[in-house]
């Protein structure tokens, strides 16, 4: 089946079974490798993308379920005010170590501050506990989200 997907503002075609997870359409069919595979069961958050602005786990999202919803990935999240601030904060606070989970962390964090201008520690726990980081960057992620919330849109 051929699916027409709206990704990062552009239309893309993919000829796959409808139960194919969006993750593999992005990575293997369309060549957008910024979104990462970590567990395949929505347990680690590495594959997080935005669907109409909401964070979803692309590893368990069948491509046939997406319809006309707009997908945003790590490659383009920097074009949104929230994504830009989160990326800036990640650099300012030197969050990243190996970096592999950070695409997913940044997608979850961007969605958080897009909907919540001043997230509390509990808000951060709720939004970010689905994203595992084995390098252990959690403390810096927490600080960077708070830092991003202070940045102006111009950043």
């Amino acid at each position, binding site marked *: 089946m051929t699916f027409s997907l709206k990704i990062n503002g552009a239309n893309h075609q993919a000829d796959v079974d409808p139960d194919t997870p969006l993750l593999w359409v992005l990575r293997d069919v369309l060549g957008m490798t910024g979104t990462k595979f970590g567990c395949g069961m929505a347990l680690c958050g590495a594959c997080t993308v935005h669907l109409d602005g909401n964070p979803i786990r692309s590893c368990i999202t069948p491509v046939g379920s997406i319809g006309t919803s707009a997908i945003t990935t790590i490659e383009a999240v920097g074009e949104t005010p929230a994504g830009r601030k989160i990326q800036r904060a990640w650099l300012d606070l030197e969050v990243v170590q190996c*970096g592999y989970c950070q695409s997913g962390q940044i997608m979850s964090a961007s969605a958080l501050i897009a909907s919540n201008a001043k997230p509390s520690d509990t808000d951060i726990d709720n939004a970010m*506990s689905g994203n595992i980081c084995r390098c*252990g960057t959690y403390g810096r992620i927490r600080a960077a989200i708070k830092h991003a919330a202070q940045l102006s849109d111009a950043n």
Partner: protein
Amino acid sequence: MFTDRFAEGHGAGEPSGLSRRNFLKAGAAAGGGLILGVAFARGGMAQTAQEFAPDAFVRIDRDGRVAIIVCQVEMGQGTYTSMPMLIAEELEVPLSQVHVEHAPPDDRLYANPLIGFQVTGGSTSVRGFWKPLREAGAAARTMLISAAAQTWSVDPSTCRAEAGQVIHAPSGRKLAYGALADKAATLPAPSHAALKDPKDFKLIGTPAKRLDTPPKVNGAAKYGIDTRLPGMKVATVAACPVFGGKLAHVDDSKAKAVNGVRQIVQIDNAVAVVADHMGAAKKGLAALAITWDEGVNAKLSTQDIVDQLDAATQKPGIVAKQEGDVEKAIKGAAKIIEAVYREPLLAHTTMEPINCTVHVRKDGCDIWVGTQVIARAQAIAAEITGLPLDKIAVHNHVLGGGFGRRLEVDFIGQTVRIGQQVDGPVKIIWTREEDIHHDIYRPYYYDRLRAGLDDQGMPIAFHHRVGGPSILSRWAPPAFKNGLDGDAVEGADGPYGFPNLLIDYVRQEPPPGLLVGWWRGVGVTHNAFMVEGFVDELAAAAGKDPVEYRRALLGKAPRARAVLDLAAEKADWGKPLPPRSARGVALVFGFGSYIAHIAEVTIDKDGSVEVKRIVCAVDCGTVVNPDTVKAQIEGGTIYGITAALYGEITIKNGRVEQNNFDSYPALRMNEAPAIEVHLIDSNESPGGIGEPGTPGAAPAIVNAIFAATGKRLRKLPVDKDLLKSA
């Protein structure tokens, strides 16, 4: 420690044989510019100019960019920033102008200065390259100044280097390094170039921004798993779930019918589904009907391994360290304390699942992978294909976590075997389940500890019998000497001084097919839990404060005492906490660094443990990038907390019982404590920093649990059922 056991003369206290002279040789780079080779001094057999075989290269291109080509790979530890800092400091060039290139596979040209072959591990990058890279930077700077002085026909002493250019102050003339590189390449490398006095450092010791971060926040960084090639297929694999078992039969009729599946490949112990994309490969794999020949381990359970260790450690082992007479001292002791401490098998679960891409052809083979041991990747491909080494190209990548897992090449060999049957390039990705079922695990350790206390409760005898397999005997056989595995006993007496000491080692291998290997903090992580838990028991038996008790054992270890004192001060040691909340301490020396962890925990009524705060004090000698040091201690500590609270691989019917992050959990944001890292200001040689954050986390937590509940846990992970309140 494991990393220091290979190259003779490169002991922990003398990183990279620093008193000996490293050789430098200069020449023209293939594409223009200056290339400088560095050959590390080795033991008593320093290389001569005739047999010069460099271990690292520094290249200055015509555009002024500086490349370091070394064995080290970036896996999150920050080495692709700290090594450029070493060069930039002496070369007088902006850090942004320096980068690291992945070295091609060649153990002879690109050896790790501490280990002797091409490997990243054991917290060796800064320790090993601290002097050679600064020497190379200083030599290149001297040559560039000479080249400029010749160009201008002036005395070199009237020129200076600054920010990537040579300046002739009297005339105000300037030439950029790039413009001088070709001329400098015609000059001999100086036999000696003076290094800066540390007080003149401008970069070393400052929190430099990491050079590898920008492409990691926008999806641009390419890991091995991101490899894409024209015509490439994607495959996933199932190896026999029972260790050592083989593939008996596969019915692939349903899998072949899956849209996008192209080929089913069988090798002796595994089957792979090759497809257009991973979604189809996974679906195809699920549709296979596989019959395994389970072999001799079909009934194996964790308890079998424990029973074997229990029996083996009843008898004395190989003596690793002996001071005084433990048996005699124990006979005269006022009190004898004995305990068995146990640590489980552990998986690594790097966030980037195991993967490898190959293109095997009749006349050659290409491999795209992220590996800590690139020359071993090349060697295993040569062994399997029968191709000569020079026909096997390995393209290395940044690693999505290593932690020791990518010190192994099992999956690379598997991919090559599968790739031999595929026409064109193929990328193998293990599912997370496959990763957990077929890791090369941190061994099960089963240690017996015994101490004799005097009438003041202080230890007059300390006996640590280590029981476990030898990783070195498989991974680096020449380093396994006289039956002793130096890694297994690393840190087995902690940083302490005991008047009578015995460490012996009982080697007990797991059943064939179950492989064990390196895991973050290696031998020190294993022994820190045993020793720090037991020393805490001794303090309790003596009725003494755990910090004060340790202090009293550190008369000859002032650096250890200083980190202990600093951590105690910063953690408010001794300040009362609510009921079922307490602090625990652990003190560790390893990789040339000292670290104290103080954990503050609260135990809920259901027995679950909340780690609320961790305070670390670290003395890792001279600090290159303090922000990276802190990040590594923070992250290493989180890795250790995960193991303390959750980490356990168990085996039933020859199979690993855990599958994914649901049954093999990792610490998450809502559980992560605040971690403070305090650094001791030091001019000592740099210590390692990637490994040392992990070992102290678990013992600090179990010691805090004891302080909070009176329950002494001698087995990991923490069993919350034992901690329920009545």
